[in-house]
């Protein structure tokens, strides 16, 4: 089959590789009909996530048709149309039983590696380095899906791929970020980053009852999408004015947003050249893995007693974490890779009910063979790129 493989920093290629096979009795093989490039794939592309190997197949947002099942698979059969959640979860460990699917204790065959970096291992993830298990990803013609009875959701409704594909990651991720921020009509919520996850965080805050949501980004076209499609009620372009904290105060009568959502993660840009240079140089020299501008500003901006909800991806160590502001302002931080499984049914329900059409983020539709160009376009935000869908 053809698949998008990582072959070093800033290099992906579409190559011929062996077809996937059943390795565990609970596996299924999916013939992929649509797959997407995630902002977090850019962390791999840019070489900031350790433990990548040349030849790793990328991609953790995909859907398709079941073409083979292992002998323990009972809920799915050949021909079923499914969307696959990006974390791989066993469904039987204590974390899974508590609904914390991205913290599954049994699906990372490289648990020892993750334990060294994070103290404890977390769930396996498709196409996301060997730290999260070394599972081949879904930017390919086929993918092996372990624990097929636990993860994939069957799509029986008459919906386009693009309307349900993002159930695999970014819609639930944005939704969880919103949920952790505890939206309500009287609260003002600020969302750092108007990329695809930020768009869904904004839209989800609105779905969950927030009446005021502020979008923060430096790309006018992304801020326009946040306003026109996702429902942001105000925007801050930090390319025009880098003092995000001051502007957020101005927009909230001096209080600061009641909750802030970091939908940016480890490769933030910043309007302040000196701060950006400090982290950029340290990150390039691999002395810190993160450029955490969004997280720092989120903590500084958040109203005392408020909530900092972190759904942007971080990978290792950060410098200059504003611990004083965090502690003295009595903030609560909530974080995590999304527990996608628990959101699949309710969010599909919202799509079917017409409350949201997630396809609004799609700006580029390309054949799988165009993946190398698509990564470049997405990384450099060329051609007003927000979200790329690849068709195998």
């Amino acid at each position, binding site marked *: 089959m053809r698949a998008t493989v990582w072959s070093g920093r800033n290099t992906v290629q579409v190559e011929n590789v062996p077809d996937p*096979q059943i390795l565990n009795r609970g596996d299924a093989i999916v013939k992929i009909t649509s797959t997407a490039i995630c902002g977090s794939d850019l962390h791999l592309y840019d070489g900031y996530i350790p433990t990548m190997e040349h030849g790793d197949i990328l991609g953790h947002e995909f859907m398709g048709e079941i073409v083979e099942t292992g002998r323990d698979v009972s809920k799915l059969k050949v021909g079923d149309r499914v969307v696959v959640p990006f974390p791989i979860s066993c469904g039987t460990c*204590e974390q899974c039983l508590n609904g914390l699917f991205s913290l599954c204790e049994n699906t990372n065959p490289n648990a020892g590696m993750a334990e060294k970096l994070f103290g404890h291992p977390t769930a396996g993830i498709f196409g996301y380095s060997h730290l999260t*298990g070394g599972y081949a990803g879904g930017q390919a013609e086929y993918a092996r899906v372990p624990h097929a009875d636990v993860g994939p959701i069957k799509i029986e409704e008459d919906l386009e791929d693009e309307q349900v594909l993002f159930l695999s990651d970014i819609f639930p991720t944005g939704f969880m970020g919103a949920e952790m921020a505890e939206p309500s009509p009287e609260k003002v919520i600020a969302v750092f980053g108007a990329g695809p996850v930020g768009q869904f965080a904004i839209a989800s805050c609105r779905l969950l009852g927030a009446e005021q949501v502020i979008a923060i980004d430096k790309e006018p076209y992304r801020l326009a999408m946040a306003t026109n499609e996702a429902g942001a009620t105000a925007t801050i372009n930090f390319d025009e004015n880098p003092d995000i904290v001051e502007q957020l105060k101005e927009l909230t009568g001096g209080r600061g947003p009641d909750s802030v959502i970091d939908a940016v993660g480890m490769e933030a840009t910043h309007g302040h050249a000196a701060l950006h240079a400090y982290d950029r140089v340290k990150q390039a020299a691999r002395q810190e893995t993160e450029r955490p501008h969004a997280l720092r500003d989120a903590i500084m901006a958040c109203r005392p007693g408020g909530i900092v909800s972190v759904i942007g991806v971080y990978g290792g160590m950060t410098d200059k974490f504003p611990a004083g502001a965090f502690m003295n302002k009595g903030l609560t931080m909530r974080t995590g890779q999304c527990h996608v499984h628990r959101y699949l049914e309710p969010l599909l329900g919202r799509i079917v009910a017409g409350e949201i059409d997630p396809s609004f983020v799609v700006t580029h539709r390309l054949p799988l063979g165009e993946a190398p160009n698509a990564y470049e376009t997405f990384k450099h935000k060329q051609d007003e790129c927000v979200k790329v869908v690849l068709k195998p």
Partner: protein
Amino acid sequence: MVIGTAVDRAWRMAAALASVVGSFVADVSTSVRMTVDPQPTRKDRHMDGNASITIRAPQEDVISRWRSFAQDADGSSRLGRIEIDDEEPDGAIRWHTSQDATAQASGVTRFVSAPGDRGTEIHIRIEFDVTGGVVGEAVKKVTGDEPQQLVRDDLRRLKQLIETGEIARSDGAPMGHSAKAQPEQRPAQPLEHAHG
């Protein structure tokens, strides 16, 4: 802000670089300290270490599954077959590895109910002789053949077997959890031939 921006930027960049270099040593030592494994303690030519895990199953089940796994009934153990020496009144099991095991060690395994009906904790204390000296032991640690790592591999594999029925395999680690395989992973793409 406009006048002298380029000079300003260059100066700031230099300042940033200087402070980065200055904090290098402290950063590296901190991150190293925060990411290394707990080391087994060393007494003379003897090493000892611990491994533990919590498995969501009743104590009797975990004990019988551990016994059959540790005697390598189905070939899943990384440490290899053990022989049981005796059982203490509190349920602890003393054992030593058989001659054909991957590494030579002896140990004591204890089973404790986890708080709040959350399953069973397995605690293993192992002892082994340092063969090949400290250097040899360091090499084994890197290659994943050190007994403590083998025991930790085995506990993860046993947890997977009991809780999910199978050992989790990926394209990068088709043999399942193994410290030995972690430094040299195959690419995360499908194998050419079916794996057993």
